[in-house]
């Protein structure tokens, strides 16, 4: 008995050690493992482009630091001065802004590429998390960056961003722990938006980039990879694009921040627009929870994609999730820009659309699974209930119920009860038949 436990323990330790080693060896930060692939497939240069645009942002940012004044009374004036009086100020600021936007665009497309081309197989699941963290770093730097202009958009976006964490208080059953409001006050550097917020955002804006830069350089030093997997001749094209955009479309300044007047419509930078629309539809607690859950889902998804299959047509759930994410980003951004959303009519429509897309994926996945591995009818029915009917019940009833504040507790309990009946029947059937088949197989083998 004890020997058995020991043996099993060593086995588990060995497998987990191998798993960790394999995954650490698979780590890829800016596509440095795809140097050969990048020569023929332009999608694999995206990691390099992220790094390149990041460097442009750092260099132009260093120049801007020489002129900019991080104080609430003078920040806006110093931006105006940079834009209109300092020679080459407008271009430097434009390059800084558009290169930062380009970081976010390239990082987003790269994340989609990793999902579609299945770059996380085998043993590279963490790369999705790394790519996502790169993107979130970019977005956070963007958010802290546009407060520094101290215009209306910056002020109100910061207010939304700082009020968000206070809803964490409502997750606790035991009562308020003040984690949310303290997080908010640490972010703001006080109990209101002011000079401390600006100082704090300015330091975070630079500190995060600096720390990430040091970490990446240490990684390069240790592994000896190249930073860019494209030639400098090729790299000059995106650099030129950023400069040309900065000259043609000077970066916006907006109006000076006024704490007493909310601008209409209130918009953030483009990459947060879909989330802003989401805030109109959702109860704030759920909006906060989902804002955290979306990135977590992206990190967990590759771990759920089992098996060696890399073709997208054989991974329909993932295809549908990718399509869903992209469609919702586009549609929500469109709705908020043109301000045509109806907060009472729309939520059931887009929620149903979301579940429908995932449902198509699940059923399609089931069909693919059946074609590849035909089994007995009884097994197929049990599987169908367990893997298709139950998830659909959960998707169509439990989540919408939980997300809708207006459905009563009694209705929720009834709904969950209705879900549980097919689930219990399905899973019992599923496991009983599996067990019966196993016994039959063992008999046949004997």
């Amino acid at each position: 008995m004890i020997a058995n436990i020991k043996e099993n323990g060593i086995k588990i330790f060995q497998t987990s050690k191998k798993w960790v080693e394999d995954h650490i060896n698979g780590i890829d930060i800016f596509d440095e493992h795809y140097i050969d692939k990048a020569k023929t497939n332009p999608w694999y240069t995206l990691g390099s482009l992220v790094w390149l645009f990041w460097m442009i942002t750092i260099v132009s940012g260093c120049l801007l630091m020489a002129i900019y004044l991080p104080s609430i009374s003078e920040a806006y004036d110093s931006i105006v001065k940079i834009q209109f009086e300092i020679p080459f100020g407008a271009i430097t600021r434009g390059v800084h802004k558009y290169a930062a936007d380009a970081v976010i665009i390239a990082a987003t497309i790269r994340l989609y590429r990793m999902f579609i081309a299945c770059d996380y197989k085998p043993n590279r699941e963490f790369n999705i998390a790394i790519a996502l963290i790169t993107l979130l770093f970019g977005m956070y730097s963007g958010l802290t960056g546009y407060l520094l202009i101290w215009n209306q958009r910056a002020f109100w976006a910061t207010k939304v961003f700082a009020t968000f964490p206070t809803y964490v208080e409502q997750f606790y059953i035991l009562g308020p722990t003040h984690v949310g409001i303290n997080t908010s006050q640490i972010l703001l550097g006080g109990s209101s938006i002011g000079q401390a917020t600006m100082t704090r955002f300015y330091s975070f804006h630079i500190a995060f980039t600096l720390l990430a830069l040091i970490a990446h350089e240490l990684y390069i030093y240790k592994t000896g990879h190249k930073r860019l997997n494209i030639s400098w001749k090729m790299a000059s094209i995106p650099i030129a694009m950023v400069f040309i955009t900065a000259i043609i479309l000077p970066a916006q300044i907006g109006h000076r921040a006024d704490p007493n007047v909310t601008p209409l419509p209130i918009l953030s930078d483009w990459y947060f627009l879909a989330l802003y629309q989401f805030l109109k539809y959702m109860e704030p607690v759920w909006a906060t929870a989902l804002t955290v859950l979306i990135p977590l889902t992206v990190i967990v998804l590759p771990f759920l994609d089992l098996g060696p299959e890399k073709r997208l047509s054989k991974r329909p759930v993932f295809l549908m999730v990718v399509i869903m994410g992209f469609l919702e980003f586009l549609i929500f951004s469109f709705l908020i820009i043109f301000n045509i959303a109806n907060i009472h009519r729309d939520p059931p429509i887009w929620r149903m659309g979301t579940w429908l897309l995932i449902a198509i994926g699940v059923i399609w996945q089931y069909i693919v699974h059946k074609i590849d591995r035909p089994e007995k009818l009884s097994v197929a029915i049990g599987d169908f209930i367990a893997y298709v009917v139950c998830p659909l019940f959960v998707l169509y009833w439990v989540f919408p119920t939980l997300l809708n504040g207006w459905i009563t507790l009694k209705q929720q309990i009834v709904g969950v009860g209705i879900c549980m009946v097919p689930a219990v029947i399905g899973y019992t059937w599923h496991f009983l038949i599996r067990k019966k088949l196993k016994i039959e197989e063992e008999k046949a083998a004997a």
Partner: protein
Amino acid sequence: MNIETTRRNLLKGMLAVPVLGTMLAVLSPFMRFLKPTIKPLNYMQGPDLPKSLKPVTFDLSLFPNAFDVQSFNFTQINKEYTALGTQIRDIPGYAVKLPSGDFAVYSRICPHLGCVFNFVLNPEDVAKGYNFKPDGPVFACPCHLSVFDIQQEGKVVSGPAPRPPRKFVYKVENNQLVISDLESGGVA
């Protein structure tokens, strides 16, 4: 794998305990560096609350009819974690006379995500912009379309806001409306 490496790994694992402990011990000073008002190891400490500077007063003759409204700025002193230490901040507010003769005095900062909301007298205007037609004059927030009914103590009648707007403490004395304090919470 032989047992020796396991033992070595076990020792390495045991070493993680003091390292983690050190990190935890550093966490409190680090948090206090970022938020100096926290007492040592008191992670659950409540938030820093602003203090009211001076009351705002209105003459009652400014409110002859029902739904007459006055907007005002209520000054508060906020904590700030810089060398300055404090920041003075104006909170916009509305004082509305209700048909019952009472007053509705609310902070204009939306309890949802901190936008400044408006007083909308005409229900038709609300129906156009906020996807909802109220019975009477309301407070309506343009950011995320929350609508608050003034006559039902600021009840949320439409939109995502989780609670009514924050109330001012006020009293009527010597033919004057004196607004002296604000319900705490939210981000100014």
